[in-house]
C-alpha cells in the first residue's frame, strides 16, 4: 500500500486501474454488437467464446485457486465438483442440493486431510 496515501488515492486507483479497463469491454460490446441478432451464426460463435471463457475462469478457480482453497489437494477439489454434479443430476437438477453436496464433500475431506 506504499503507493496509496489514502482514501482519495485508492478511489482514483479503483476508477483508473479497475473500472476503466473493465467497463471498456462492456461499452465496446454494446457499440460493436448492435447488429448481432440472437440466433444468428455470429451470435452463436460469440456465445460459444463467452461460454468457453467463463468456463475457463471457473476452471481456474478449481485447478489453481487462491488462498485457503489452495491448501486442499487438487484431487479433493475435483472430487467435490464431481459429487456436486452427480447430486445435481440425481436431485432433479437442483443447484442448491448440488452445491451443498459439493461443499459437504470438500469440508468433510478438508476435516479428514487437515484434521
Amino acid at each position: 500500500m506504499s503507493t496509496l496515501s489514502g482514501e482519495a488515492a485508492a478511489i482514483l486507483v479503483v476508477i483508473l486501474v479497475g473500472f476503466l479497463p473493465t467497463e471498456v469491454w462492456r461499452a465496446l460490446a454494446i457499440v460493436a454488437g448492435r447488429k448481432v441478432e440472437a440466433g444468428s451464426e455470429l451470435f452463436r460463435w460469440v456465445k460459444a467464446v463467452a461460454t468457453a471463457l467463463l468456463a475457463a475462469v471457473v476452471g481456474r478457480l478449481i485447478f489453481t485457486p487462491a488462498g485457503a482453497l489452495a491448501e486442499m489437494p487438487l484431487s479433493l477439489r475435483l472430487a467435490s465438483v464431481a459429487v456436486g454434479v452427480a447430486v445435481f443430476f440425481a436431485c432433479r437438477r437442483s443447484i442448491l442440493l448440488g452445491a451443498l453436496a459439493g461443499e459437504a464433500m470438500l469440508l468433510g475431506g478438508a476435516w479428514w486431510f487437515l484434521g
Partner: protein
Amino acid sequence: MPPPVSAPAEPPPLPPDVETLETLSPLAWAGRGARHAISVPGVVLFAGYIGLGGLLHGVGFPFFAGMLSTLLIWALPAQVILAGGIGAGTALPALALAIGLSSLRLLPMTVAIAPFLRGHRRNFWAELLCSHYVAMTFWVEGLRLLPKIPGEGRVAFALGLGNALLAISLAGTAAGFFLAGELPPILAAGLLFLTPVSFSLMMIRNAGHDLMDWLALAAGLLSVPFVVGLSGGADLMISGIGGGTVAYLIGRFLRRRA
C-alpha cells in the same frame, strides 16, 4: 411428484419461473428481476464478496474505495487481481493491463446477452446502462431468465436483477471487511469453493439442449490444466477464443449433418 397418468385436455402448465403477464409496469418488472436475485446464485455472490472484502481488508485497502470497487468494477476476478496486485505492490499500469486482459471475456458475454436487453424499440443508452451489470452471475441468470420476459419488460427486469445482485454484493463486501481474519481456514476454503462449484452447475443447467454450449463448456473447463503456465492472459485466450471457436465449428458441422 410423478405426473398424473391421464393427460389433461388443456396445455401443460408453464414452469413456475416463466413470466406470462405482459401488462406489468416497469417497476413491477424490476421487482420481479430483483426477486430472482434472492436465490442460490445470490447467496454464492454474497459469499464470494465476503472473500473479496477480507482480501481488501488484508492488503489495507480503505473501506469506501473497496465498496466503490464492487459498485464500479463489478467483476469479482478483476477485483481479486486488483486487491492481489496492490498487496504485492505491482506497478499500476501493469495492474490496469492485467485487469483489462482478465476482463476481456465481458466483451463476448455482453454481445451474447445484448439481444435480450433490447425492448421492442432499441434504446442505446438503456443497453449501455444494462451492460454495466454484465458479470458472471448476471450473465448466467440473465441468459436463462430474460428470453422468457416480454420485450417491454426486459430493461426493467434486467435493472431490477442487476441492482439487487449489486446490493447483495455490496453487503458481502462490507461483511468481509468486518469478518476479515475471523474465519477459520476450512470455512474460508469452503467460501472460496462455493463460486466454482455452483457456477459449474449453473452453466451445466444453462447448456440445456444445445450441443454447442456443452462443447464450449467442456473446452473451457478441460483446457485449463494445459494452459495454466501461460501468462499475460494467453491462457484465457486459448481456452476461450480457441475452445469456443472449436465448439462452434463442431456444433455447426453436427447441426448441418443432422
